[in-house]
């Protein structure tokens, strides 16, 4: 192994030559020296810099109570459809705000995935891969942090607001670990320095001296990674103001809807504006094995209000064209309504949605059959879903990272980009 690059930082050569790999200034420049530090590519990096917000519907939101209604069928449930701003497309009556934003989003009604329970599904829909004993796959957030993040930014490159998923950075290493903030967007305990800035700086300088001395004579990947995290923690101290959103929340409460999820979405927009490449915002608890309709009646309206507000806000600020908004949970729900008025776990046919970053609005892709039991047309696997996400973010889904000596493509081998979603 050449000492200049650590094993997690190899990129696919082919991907680099194709030029589809938008890279941030830091990690890659360090490894590929002259090749990527050329002025032209740096310019391209700047131009390409993209963001992604994942709206995570934890527990598995129902496709039937959102975008794939089965009106008049035994599997249809109790809600009525409403018209949207896209002629011919209807959604559930629980989503009046999103009905007016349908021209911005593409709905995939033909998801077919391979992990039917929560832990496996959460892993799968965060990484694109099924859990494996041998490879620790990174979450999409870590991958986006790696390629679109900036080394040395004050803010972390991967932020999670009240959400699930514990695959973290996987084999990409601690540099790309998610930074978790609380359910109201508050910073974690111990974020604030107890010392005045002068004191903080002076002890920092002493610490830096000692660390410099150490690495002058010794090689250690662990000490290097430890130091990088230390630097990131210190920079965060400078950027704490970004997380204070009370004042702005007052002005945007109406747009996002007065809910905790709305507040988290506003924080996500603010973080995008501040340069954070990946933010995940979560909402629980869609696991409606009983009382499915009551749960969705309670949960979906504040969620869809916030989502619609987020899309409008991003567009007004000119951010939507470079920000991909992903809407997904780990599983869908059964067509059959069980004897407790609930719907159980289902992955043979379910729904996700994408918006922004070149995604064509107003599209409904794929189709489930009359009762929503099977995908009737154009199935989309988890691999295809992630390939599409990476493509939208200007990343080649076939680009490889090394897990030990094993090359692992961003999206699983054989995945296809759903190109009909792009304008």
């Amino acid at each position, binding site marked *: 192994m050449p000492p200049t690059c650590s094993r997690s930082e190899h990129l696919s050569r082919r991907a680099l030559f194709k030029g589809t790999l938008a890279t941030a200034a830091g990690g890659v420049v360090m490894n590929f020296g002259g090749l990527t530090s050329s002025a032209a590519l740096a310019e391209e990096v700047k131009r390409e810099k993209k963001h992604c917000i994942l709206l995570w519907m934890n527990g598995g939101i129902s496709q039937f109570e959102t975008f794939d209604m089965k009106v008049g069928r035994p599997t249809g449930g109790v809600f009525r459809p409403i018209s949207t701003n896209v002629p011919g497309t209807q959604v559930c009556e629980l989503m009046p705000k999103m009905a007016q934003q349908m021209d911005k989003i593409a709905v995939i009604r033909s998801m077919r995935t391979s992990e039917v329970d929560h832990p496996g599904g959460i892993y799968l829909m965060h990484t694109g891969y099924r859990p494996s004993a041998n490879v620790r796959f990174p979450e999409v957030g870590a991958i986006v942090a790696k390629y679109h993040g900036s080394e040395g930014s004050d803010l972390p490159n991967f932020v999670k607001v009240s959400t699930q998923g514990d695959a973290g950075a996987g084999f990409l290493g601690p540099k790309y670990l998610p*930074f978790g903030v609380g359910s109201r967007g508050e910073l974690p305990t111990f974020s604030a320095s107890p010392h005045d800035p002068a004191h903080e700086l002076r002890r920092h300088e002493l610490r830096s001296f000692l660390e410099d001395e150490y690495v002058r004579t010794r090689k250690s990947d662990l000490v290097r990674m430890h130091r990088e995290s230390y630097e990131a923690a210190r920079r965060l101290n400078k950027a704490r103001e970004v997380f204070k959103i009370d004042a702005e929340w007052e002005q945007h409460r109406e747009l996002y809807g007065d809910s905790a999820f709305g507040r988290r979405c506003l924080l996500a927009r603010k973080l995008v504006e501040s340069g954070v490449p990946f933010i995940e915002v979560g909402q629980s608890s869609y696991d409606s094995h009983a009382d499915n309709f009551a749960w969705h009646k309670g949960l979906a309206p504040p969620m869809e209000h916030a989502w619609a507000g987020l899309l409008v806000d991003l567009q007004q600020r000119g951010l939507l064209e470079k920000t991909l908004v992903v809407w997904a949970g780990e599983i869908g729900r059964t067509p059959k309504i069980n004897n407790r008025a609930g719907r159980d776990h289902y992955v043979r046919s379910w729904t996700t949605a994408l918006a922004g970053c070149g995604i064509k609005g107003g599209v409904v892709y794929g189709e489930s059959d009359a009762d929503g039991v099977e995908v009737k047309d154009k199935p989309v696997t988890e691999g295809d879903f992630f390939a599409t996400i990476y493509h939208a973010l200007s990343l080649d889904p076939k680009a490889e990272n090394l897990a030990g000596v094993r090359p692992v493509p961003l999206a699983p081998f054989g995945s296809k980009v759903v190109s009909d979603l792009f304008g």
Partner: protein
Amino acid sequence: MLHLRISVLAVLCGWVVTVSADEPRLRDRIDESVASAWQREKLTPAAPATDSEFLRRVSLDLVGTIPTHDEAVAFLDDVSPGKRDALIERLLADPRHAQHRADLWDLILFGRNPPGYDTDKRDGFQSWLCEQFANNVPYDVLARTILKAEGNSAEQGAPLFFVQYRNQPEDCNEAITQTFLGIQLQCARCHDHPFEPWTQQDFFGMAAFLARLEVVQVGKKDELTMWAIGEKSTGDVLFTGPAAKQTPGKKGEPVKPKFLHGEPLVEPALPDGFKEVKFENNKPPPAPQFSRKDQLAEWITKPDNPYFARAITNRIWSQFFGRGLVHPVDNMSPSKTPTHPELLDELTKQLIAHQFDLRWLTRELVSSRAYQLSSNGATGEPMPNWFEHARSRPLSAEELVASWRVATGFDVVDAAKEKKDEKKPNSKSRFKPLQWEYVIRFFGQPNNGTGDFQGGLQEHLYLNNGQLGSLLVNGQGSLIDAIAKSDASPEERIDRLFLSLLTRRATDAEKQRFTEYLAADKNQDRLRDAIWVLMTCGEFRFNH
């Protein structure tokens, strides 16, 4: 007479007498094997570890803490040639060695977030474990005791392992095969393994041994609930075929116990008119007519079990060398070739010949020249494939706190106070004055003792802005006290700081910079800053 004298000598030297004199020591076999791999791979090994490096490393590995300032000075200034061997003997006999082993095994068997109700209260189990290691109980006996689970979880301790898998024979099977046999069967739970020889029948044949277990509450002891593991005389696991072909409502076929790739279990027939008993709370469950679990425990821990001895040998190796000879250590599938096949065979053979004496194995490993290499190699790889430099690993949560307490003298100051208080310590009071919850949250992972470091920026929020200041006490015996009251030269005081925290003397550049820093004003804040720097730097955070 002569014979007797030799054995007495051997015992005094801490040797086990079953090895004949002309057989090479295991430590030498290790060094031969890794050296021949270096030659083949064209690698230059790192230099031998300095005394400082070795002292810090072996102290953390054997007793879970860095040495005190005085221990460091005594060892570094000792000129006797056998001082490393003497140190190893002293550390192996230290009560903290048993505690450290118990900490490690508690995490191997339970992890930080074990499944099952009440499994977070492990005082009974942990003190049992500690006792086993203090008495150097052979590993096969230890494993057998856990798997037989006799008595209850509060008084005997061992039964707590099964409490994690109440009514979950499949999960229990995965845990037992992974922990004690070093193989992963979980794929074969749902389908025959695509490229390992494990079939679904293998999986359920093993799970069948565990199908009749029940967790029974048999009373209370102090704060702890006593759990016992009952076993019924009837009941089977049901096998429904590949998961992908399952349909709702399909009933499975009962599967009989069969040892993994071995014989089916021969079971005596139940007596005529046998009526199954129902276990009652607060009553020890009666023994079954025939215990499947005990049969499994015996089979697993037999010296000729094809997996058991190799798995423990590989695991203990990895604890001192970072990487298993098959890596990771809990996935030694048949398709994986060890990096040093002949060495793994030799180590395994000798461990069996030494009746699974883990202390003996540990002594041989840490006495090898390979273990005593510097960690400063040609690459910064924390777990080098060919052991051409020593591994680096993060300190565990327990090791970090113990080391901070030793370095700052909090230990000494607190012990003096504790005597007056006479309060009963518990497993969390070892973390004093830090809060157990925070330390585990920020430093609880990884807990497998390898270089799999995943510390993100969160741990630094705690190190920078958290509770470390509470360790910097002033009283008699504290580091601050020793420095502040010292009439030694500034340079000597800096040496004391470095020896207390990093087990080495400061370099000239460090002496100069730290002296300037402390001299800038007499405020004790500056001394606290300097200690904080040494407590949080990379050199402290890792065992290297």
